[in-house]
Structures are given as structure tokens and as C-alpha cells.
């Protein structure tokens, strides 16, 4: 019982640690720089409490259910050795974790509202949610693809920099053709995708793979999946932009 309570307190504190720096910075700016009462203080505080409680339940739920099972599966698959199943598992893992990523849901909705306000898409809640959903599916597909490519790279042991540099070149080329309305959100989607759910599971897959293949160094080969997952969405979201605009 006591260990349970200690664990609970620890978990709450670690979520609070996410918000604490923001509180400190915002409060000191409000007191020393802006020197004015914060607008809508009560609503914002209650909203932040929702963020804290929601994030705590979310992460706690992941830790007791999904993470142990997902990590075990990642290790089992990497030990099993059938490359096709492994690639398919990598794709499915990347795709499904990205769909549930909270930051991506939030950003996709915002992007939809902004596109509607600029009259780039129709201003109805239906077309906004369609836009947001399409964006998330595009990103999820690209993360799935990235993980599959990344797994293949680890199995083959090819150096990561050639993939990344090629990716950069592709992104730079497509940027010069892409509609300017999509460029910002496309570049952002790279960083947004890899968060709370995706990072732990994907990292487990990478390190599991690199340690189960002989002659692989976990640090050189195990890391790098996340980098792929932040790169491919930029390219595919710009393609999505060609279709939308």
C-alpha cells in the first residue's frame, strides 16, 4: 500500500515536472516583464489542472498496459527473425501509435481551423475535421513507413547518415514546389509525431533489434528510428498539400 502511494506520488510529480517549467517562466514573465494581471486566470488554471490529470492518467495507463506488452512484443519480433513480419510490425506500430499521439491530434485540429479561417478549405466543422483527419492519416502512414525503412536499415547495418541526407535533399526539393500554406505545418509535423506513445515503443524496437543481431552496436544502430519518423512526415504532408490546395 505504501509503495503504491509512493509510486503514485512519484508519477504525479513526474507529470507535474512537465508543467512546472512553463508555470515558472509564465509567472515570472507576468510578474516582472508584463507586470499586469493574467487574463482569464481562473479558466486557464482549471484548464491546466485538466492537462495535468489527463496526462497523468494517460501516461499511467500506458505504463501499466501498453508499454510492457509493446516492449515485449518488440523484443520477441526482433528475436524471431522473419524480416517481412518484422517490417510489417514496424509499420503497424508506427502507424497506430501516431494516430493516438495527443500532440498531433491537437495540432491537426488547429491546422484545420486555420486553413478554414484563411478560406483554403470550406468553413464547416465537417471539412475541418476531414482536413485534420487526412493530415493525421498522412503523418501516421509516413511514420509507419519510416519505422519499416529504419528497421530494414538496422537489419542491414547501413549507415544512417546516407538515409538522412537523402531525405533532407528530397524534402528540400519538394519544398520549392509545395503550396506555401502547407510548408509550415509539414515541417512542424516532423517534430510533433514523435512524442509520448511513439518514442518509448519505437526506441524499444530499435534497441531490441540492434542487441539481438550479432555484431551490432546498440548505440550506433539502435537509435535513429525516431530520426526517420521525424523526417518522412515532412515529405508526405507536402504531398498531401498538393492534393488539398
Amino acid at each position, binding site marked *: 500500500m505504501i509503495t503504491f502511494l509512493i509510486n503514485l506520488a512519484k508519477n504525479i510529480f513526474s507529470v507535474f515536472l512537465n508543467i512546472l517549467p*512553463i508555470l*515558472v*517562466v*509564465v509567472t515570472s*514573465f507576468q510578474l516582472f*516583464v*508584463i507586470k499586469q494581471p493574467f487574463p*482569464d486566470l481562473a*479558466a*486557464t488554471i*482549471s*484548464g*491546466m*489542472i*485538466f*492537462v495535468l*490529470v*489527463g*496526462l497523468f*492518467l*494517460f501516461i499511467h*495507463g500506458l*505504463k*501499466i*498496459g*501498453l508499454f510492457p506488452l*509493446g516492449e515485449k*512484443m518488440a523484443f520477441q519480433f526482433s528475436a524471431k527473425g522473419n524480416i517481412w513480419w518484422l517490417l510489417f510490425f514496424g509499420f503497424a506500430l508506427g*502507424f*497506430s*501509435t501516431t*494516430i*493516438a499521439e*495527443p*500532440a498531433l491530434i*491537437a495540432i491537426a485540429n*488547429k491546422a484545420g481551423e486555420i*486553413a478554414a*479561417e*484563411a478560406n483554403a478549405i470550406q468553413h464547416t466543422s465537417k471539412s475541418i475535421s476531414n482536413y485534420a483527419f487526412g493530415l493525421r492519416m498522412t503523418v501516421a502512414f509516413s511514420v509507419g513507413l519510416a519505422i519499416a525503412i529504419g528497421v530494414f536499415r538496422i537489419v542491414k547495418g547501413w549507415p*544512417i547518415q546516407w538515409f538522412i541526407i537523402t531525405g533532407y535533399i528530397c*524534402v*528540400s526539393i519538394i519544398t520549392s514546389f509545395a503550396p*506555401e500554406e502547407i*510548408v*509550415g505545418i509539414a*515541417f*512542424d509535423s516532423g*517534430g510533433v509525431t*514523435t512524442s509520448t*506513445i511513439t*518514442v*518509448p515503443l519505437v526506441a524499444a524496437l530499435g*534497441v531490441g533489434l540492434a542487441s539481438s543481431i550479432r555484431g551490432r552496436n*546498440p*548505440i550506433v544502430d539502435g*537509435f*535513429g528510428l*525516431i530520426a526517420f519518423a*521525424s523526417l518522412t512526415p515532412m515529405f508526405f504532408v507536402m504531398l498531401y498539400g498538393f492534393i488539398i490546395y
Partner: protein
Amino acid sequence: MELLYHSANVLLGTLKDVSPIIGVILFFQLVIIRKKIDNPGRLAYGFCLVIIGLAIFMIGLEEGLFPLGEAMSRQLTNFSFLAKGNAAILKEIDATGSVHPSLYFWTYVFGFCIGFSTTIAEPALIAVALKAKEVSTGAISPWGLRLAVALGVAIGISLGCYRIVIGSPLHWYIVAGYLVVIGLTFFAPKMIIPLAYDSGGVTTSTVTVPLVAALGIGLASNVPGRSVIVDAFGLIAFASLFPIISVLGYGIISEQIAIRSRKKSLRKA
């Protein structure tokens, strides 16, 4: 009543968001691995928490985090705040309809502080830093890595705010950043390269992303002459790109230091 309806709607949405993971886990566990799930009750309980937690978080985002970011950017870009009671500056803003970029000084500082503080406390980064120390047998110091990443994010967001204020195209900065990354890759120790590439994606957490996005949207809608759809996004891209540069730089510098101290001790011997 409306709140209840709204909450039920959000809950239904998160159920949809989480269902692909449940599907993937069940499919691979039952069809491919063909083993029973060890503790199905615990897994189901975990998923319930995930769904409820995500729903509460999404409501909190709408009510707390987005308004916070937007309020900060509104206050920091307010004309009378920018002019600091200097009537001449206020008059000039009125007359020209534009604001000199240097007047947004505190916005850049705010971006820097938010980037630095949230990154240095980021649990995912702490985990990666410890793992990196472990697998590099101590060659990569966790504090050095965290500091490098946090500085990268801070400079990234700060520069990103400046870009929104002056309104130059995002891709110039990104492509230039890519060139720097490619250049540094050739000089960086091999061991740090994948870690550096990963650190870009790891840093931007679930709490930081919405806040930073709201900051960008607020800036683009309040700085005169900027368009929200073209200028608002891009801060997160900066926050993911600059840590790659700073971690590669950290790798190069710490390798040089190690070589130099080795030479010194050789000379002494």
C-alpha cells in the same frame, strides 16, 4: 448539459484514436505470436485509463494550454507593451503600420526560456541521456547532452519567433539548417550521429508542442502584416532541427577535448 455532451463527444473521439493500437497489439499477439496475453485484466484497465486520460487532456488543452500560449503572445505583442509608454514609438507604429523587429525583444526571450526550461526537465530526454551514457560506457555525459539539447531547442524557438516577426520564408532557414547538419555530420564522432538525429524528435513533448504552436499562432495573428496560414507554423520544426546541430557540436567539442587531454597526459609521461 452541454459540457456533458461535449465530454462524451471527446471521449468517443479518443476511443477512436486509441483503437488502432489495441487492434495492432491484439492482432500480433493472438494471430502472429499466438500466445495468450499475460494479464488481460491489467491491459484492459490500462487502456481505460489511456482513453479517459487522453479525453481529459484534450479538454485541458482547449481550456488551458492553448489559451495560455495565445494570451502570452497577445500580451507580448501588445502595442502599448512594446512601446513601454514611449509615445513617439506608439505614434510611429500608428503611422507606419509596422513594428521594428527589435521591439519584440521580450518575445524572443520568452521563446528561449520556454524552450530551455521545458527541455531540461523533459522526462523522455532524461531517459535517452541516461541510456546514451550506459551504451557509450560513460563517454557521453547525461548533463552535457541535456544542456546541448536544451540550448538547441531554446535557440531554435527564439529564432523561430524572430522569423515569424520578420516574416521571411520558413524553408530558407530549414534548408540552411540541413546544410549545417550535413556538414557537421562529416566531422562528428560516429557514435553521436544517430543520437543527435534522434534528439531532434525526442525533445518536443506533448505539453510543449501545443504551447509552442499556440505561441506561433498568436504571434502570426498579432504582428502586423503576418498571415496566420503562412507564418504561424514552424516553431516546432526549429525546435526539432537545432538540437541536432547542438548535439553534433557537443560531440565534436567533447571529442576534441578528450584528444587534447590525452595528448597532454602523453607529453607529461
